[in-house]
C-alpha cells in the first residue's frame, strides 16, 4: 500500500464515506427547507421544476468534477487547491476566497435562522445572543475535532432527510389530502420570462455540495470515500429536491406569485402545518431546525479548510496554518471563522449575504470544471497514482456546466445586479492582489515532492 495515506502529515485521516455525505448534504439540505421556493415566486411551479432540473444538471457535473479532483489531489483546500495546481495562483486565491466567503456567509445566515426559530418557540429569547451562541458552539465543536463535528452532522442531516421522505410518502399514500389543482393554478404565472428568471434561485436546492470533497485530506481512503460519499450526497439532494417541490406545491397555493408558497419563509414546515397532522408538523419543525444547525456546522468545517489552505501557501498570514497538536484540526483557521461569521450575521442584510454566497458559488462552478479540463490536459494518462476516479462524458459535460453557471449568473441581473457587479469586482481585485502577493513566495511546483505524481505532459526540464 499505497499512496493513499502517505501525504501531508498534520490533519488526522479518519473520515469515511458517510462523513463525506454528511458534510455535503449537511451544508446543502437547508436550501430544501427554505429559500428554494423563491423560484416559485418568479416562475411558478413549472419555473421551479425547470430551475431544479437545470441547476441539478449543473451540480451533478460539478459534483463529478469535484469527486475526480478531490480523490486525485486529496487536499483540504478543495477548489482552491485544484485551481492552484491546474490553473494558477491568482485564480486559486480568488477561488479560495470565494469558497471561504460562500460558506461563511451561509453559516451566518443559518445561525440567524436558528435564532429566529428559537425565538418563535421561546419568545423571550433575543436573536443576537442566540446567533452568537450558535456560532460559538459550532466553532468549538469544530475546534475539538472533525470526526465529532461530522458525526454530529450525519445524525442531524439523516433526521432532516428522513423528515422529507416521511412527509412525501405520507402525502403520496393518502395520509393527508393533496391538492393537484394547485399544480395547474400556479403553473406558469409570469410566462416564459418567469421560467428564465426562476433559474437564479435554482442553486438553493444544491448550493455547496462541491464542499463535500474538501474533507479529502482527512479521509482514510479518499479515492473511495470522496466519490462514493459525494455522489450519494448528490442523489440525496436530487431526491429531496423533487420530493420537496412536489409536496409543497401540492399543499400550498401559488396561483398568486406574491402570496403562498412563493413567499413562504419555511415552506416545508408550513406545508406540514397545512395538513393538520401533529406528528408531521413536529417532525418538519425538528428537521428545519436541525438542517440549519448542520448546515452552519458544515460551513465552519469547509470555510476553515479553505482559509487553512490559503494560509499554508502564504496567500494570507501563515499564522493560520497551524494544526492542533492534540485534536489535529486547523484550529486557528477554525477560530477565525467566528469573527467573520458574526460580522456577516450582524450586517443586517440577510438576503444580500446569501446572494453574495450564491455569486461566490457560481464563480467556483465556472472554475472547478475549468480546473478539471486543465488537469486532464496536464495528466492525460489515467494511472492509479494520479487519477483513481475518472468521471464520465468529459470534457463535454464540463463545458456544459460552465455554460449553465454563466447563464444562471446572468439571471441575477433581475433583482440583484448591484450585488453581482460588486461581487465580480471584489473577486477581480482579489485576483490581482493575490497574484502580486504570490510573487514574493513563488517557487516552482515540484509535482513529485508535493503530490507524488510524475511531471505533467507539458513539463519541460530546465537545463
Amino acid at each position, binding site marked *: *500500500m*499505497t*499512496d*493513499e495515506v502517505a501525504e501531508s502529515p498534520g490533519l488526522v485521516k479518519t473520515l469515511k464515506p458517510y462523513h463525506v455525505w454528511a458534510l455535503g448534504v449537511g451544508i446543502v439540505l437547508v436550501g430544501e427547507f427554505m429559500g428554494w421556493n423563491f423560484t416559485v415566486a418568479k416562475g411558478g*411551479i*413549472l419555473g421551479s*421544476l*425547470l430551475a431544479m*432540473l*437545470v441547476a*441539478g*444538471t449543473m451540480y*451533478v*457535473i460539478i*459534483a*463529478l468534477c469535484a*469527486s475526480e479532483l478531490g480523490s486525485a489531489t486529496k487536499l483540504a483546500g478543495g477548489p482552491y487547491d485544484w485551481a492552484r495546481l491546474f490553473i494558477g495562483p491568482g485564480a486559486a486565491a480568488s477561488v479560495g476566497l470565494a469558497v471561504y466567503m460562500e460558506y461563511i456567509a451561509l453559516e451566518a445566515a443559518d445561525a440567524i435562522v436558528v435564532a429566529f426559530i428559537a425565538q418563535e418557540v421561546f419568545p423571550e429569547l433575543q436573536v443576537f445572543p442566540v446567533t452568537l451562541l450558535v456560532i460559538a458552539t459550532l466553532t468549538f465543536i469544530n475546534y475539538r475535532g472533525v470526526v465529532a463535528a461530522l458525526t454530529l452532522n450525519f445524525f442531524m442531516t439523516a433526521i432532516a432527510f428522513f423528515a422529507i421522505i416521511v412527509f412525501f410518502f405520507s402525502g403520496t399514500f393518502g395520509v393527508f389530502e393533496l391538492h*393537484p389543482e394547485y*399544480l*395547474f393554478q400556479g*403553473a*406558469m404565472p409570469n410566462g*416564459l420570462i418567469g*421560467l428564465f428568471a426562476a433559474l437564479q434561485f435554482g442553486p438553493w436546492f444544491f448550493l455547496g455540495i462541491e464542499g463535500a470533497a474538501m474533507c479529502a485530506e482527512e479521509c482514510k*481512503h479518499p*479515492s*473511495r470515500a470522496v*466519490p*462514493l460519499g459525494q*455522489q*450519494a450526497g*448528490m*442523489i*440525496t439532494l*436530487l*431526491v429531496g429536491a*423533487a*420530493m420537496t*417541490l*412536489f409536496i409543497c*406545491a401540492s399543499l400550498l397555493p401559488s396561483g398568486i406569485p406574491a402570496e403562498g408558497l412563493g413567499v413562504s419563509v419555511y415552506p416545508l414546515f408550513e406545508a406540514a402545518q397545512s395538513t393538520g397532522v401533529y406528528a408531521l408538523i413536529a417532525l418538519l419543525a425538528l428537521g428545519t431546525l436541525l438542517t440549519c444547525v448542520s448546515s452552519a456546522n458544515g460551513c465552519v468545517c469547509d470555510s476553515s479548510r479553505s482559509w487553512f489552505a490559503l494560509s499554508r501557501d502564504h496567500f494570507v498570514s501563515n499564522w493560520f496554518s497551524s494544526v492542533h497538536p492534540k485534536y489535529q484540526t486547523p484550529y486557528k483557521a477554525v477560530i477565525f471563522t467566528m469573527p467573520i461569521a458574526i460580522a456577516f450575521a450582524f450586517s443586517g442584510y440577510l438576503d444580500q449575504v446569501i446572494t453574495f454566497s450564491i455569486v461566490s458559488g457560481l464563480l467556483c462552478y465556472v472554475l472547478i470544471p475549468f480546473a478539471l479540463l486543465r488537469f486532464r490536459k496536464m495528466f492525460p494518462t489515467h494511472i*492509479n497514482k494520479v487519477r*483513481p*476516479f*475518472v*468521471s*464520465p*462524458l468529459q470534457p463535454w*459535460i464540463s463545458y456544459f456546466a460552465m455554460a449553465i453557471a454563466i447563464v444562471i449568473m446572468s439571471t441575477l441581473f433581475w433583482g440583484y445586479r448591484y450585488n453581482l457587479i460588486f461581487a465580480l469586482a471584489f473577486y477581480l481585485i482579489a485576483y490581482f492582489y493575490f497574484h502580486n502577493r504570490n510573487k514574493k513566495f513563488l517557487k516552482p511546483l515540484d509535482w513529485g515532492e508535493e503530490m507524488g505524481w510524475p511531471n505533467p505532459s507539458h513539463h519541460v526540464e530546465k537545463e
Partner: protein
Amino acid sequence: MDGVNEAKYKGAFAKDTYLIVGAIALLIVVQGYVVFTILSAAGSAVSPAIRGIYVVFFVLVVGIETLGYWQVRHSIKQHMFDFKYYD
C-alpha cells in the same frame, strides 16, 4: 493481493454496489414521478416545445448521475485491493 481477505472484500464491495444501485433506482423513480406528475397536471399550460426542454434536462440529470455513480463502482472495483479500501 497479499494479506487481503478476499471474501471480506467481495462482501464489502457488494454492499457498496447495493448502495449505488439502490440510490440510482430511488433517483430515477422519484425524479420521474415528480416530473411526470407536474407536467401532466400543468397540461395545456406547457407547449410541446417547452415540454421538450423538461424532458431533455430530466434525461441529462438522471443520465449523467447514473453514469457517474456507476463509474464510482467501477473505480472502487478497480482499486480496492491496491489501496486496501476495506481494511
